[in-house]
């Protein structure tokens, strides 16, 4: 693996990890986030 390879991998891994950690921190630190954040997995169509 070349130095450029280590740098690309480092930037890519650090960048994605930083973005994820920032998002997780925002979710955890924002009051009421559990009521206002959703994904297809937890959205209830309420059509049962």
């Amino acid at each position, binding site marked *: 693996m070349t130095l*450029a*390879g280590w740098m690309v991998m480092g*930037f890519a891994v650090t*960048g994605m990890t930083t973005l994820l950690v920032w998002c997780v921190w925002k979710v955890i630190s924002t009051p009421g986030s559990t009521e206002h954040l959703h994904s297809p997995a937890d*959205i209830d169509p309420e059509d049962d």
Partner: protein
Amino acid sequence: MSAPNKDSWNSRFGVILAVMGSAVGLGNFLRFPGQAAQNGGGLFMIPYLVAFLIVGIPLAWSEWALGRYGGKQGHNSAPGIFSSVLGSSKGSYLGMLGTVMPLLIYTYYVILEALCLYFAWSFLNGAIPALGANADKITGFVVTSLGMGENGSMFTDKQFTMLGLVLLCFVINFTMIYRGLSQGIEKFCAWAMPLLVVCAFLVLFRVLTLPPNPAHPEQNIVNGLGFLWNPIQGDSTIWDTLSRPSVWLAATGQIFFSLSLGFGLILTYASYLKPDDDVCLSSLTSASGNGFCEVVLGGMIAIPAAFIFLGPAFLSNPDNIGTFSLGFMTLPNVFNQMPAGQFFGFLFFFLLFLAAVTSSLSMLQPSIALLEEGLGLNRKRSVTLLGGISLIGTGFITYYSKGLTALDTVDFWMANFFIFIFATVQTLIFGWVIGEKKGYEELSAGAEISVPRGVMFMIRFVSPAYLLVIFALWCKESLPGRLADIRITEKGPTVALLSLGFILGVMALFTLVIAKANRRWKNEKVEDDI
């Protein structure tokens, strides 16, 4: 502010897992490493990052906001949402793709889901480990499993196991959907997502601690990572790689596929949100979790492990690192040569199976929403009707299994061609019909993060222009070959022609449903006015 108690911490992590889990699928662990290795290695990260920023985030935000906006107008399906936003019943026909695409993608996705389960089972019972490191035998196992040698061969005695698993996966998906999403997907994700992430880290740890290949010491983990991440490979220059349109096409397609964007799925789910629910942090968390899974986990498992056991010459053949061949032909070979490979092979394919189920479950809701609001059916009747339609589709693809032509054709038109069209239409509607001022207000409503002002400029100008250029280049490169396959030979119509006929048949059926839905919506409006 009061200190968060244990329950609130649990529920917050539950939300994060659910948000991340909805985007994680086969694309992260198989498609991404294959695409990166075939398109410049480390340099692939440049178009990938550009597509993530120019198309991924703006499109995710606009799709979520457009869906929530449509929900406020009382619509949950893409045709209903487009009809209300465009103020015309003709607009509803533009939304037809937003229901047909996820349904048709589901018809073949469930077969790949069953194949993951079959491979997990075959590792567990020793059938795949018994094949050893013989690439021909492993390829033969896959060809036989999917009936790739002859049409209809999956329906013979020898392949009843695989056919049974396809039906089992079908039943699992529809049972969960039939019971209701809140009881099905949420409970499933609550235990499947942590298990999936733990499995991925276990396999990653095993790969990173693999010793060098004793016969070829240069085939070690560091060089394996280099094979994927080195930006300059062989004699090609940086410009050689970045000037190839196919590299940019691959990166954009990867973003679409892995973020589940542009095929109506997010549009429908977002329509069920409350007006003050966040869309920006939710979709950004989903995108970042997805990116983490494919760059950090996907990028470090498949290719480096294959490099150690199979070598650079094997991986330099593009046929060996396509999504399908990497997952079901190359990786089993790797696990068969790895210490404790039987266990890790089972774990990896079980992980893929879980990831596939979380994705396939969500593909059915857009069609259900249209049947419910368009025909006035209740959920259980809608699910039953949809089950019949998708069973015919899966049966068609399962029968025409020779060379996987039917599967490949449906995938090409749905997950490549129409997805670009629908994504561009969605972006244009949000940017130009809802407009800059109202669009920004929609994005900001309930947002847990501050939305950059420039995002509307991206949605109105940059994203559509980028999509149109990429689509034009892609059509020039890929369409002629595909169109040449659609013909009638001496033996009758080709499977590609039959598959396209099937796609158009489903589209015609949904067009009739939308026509009926329009009459229903018009009558409801008249009654409301009275």
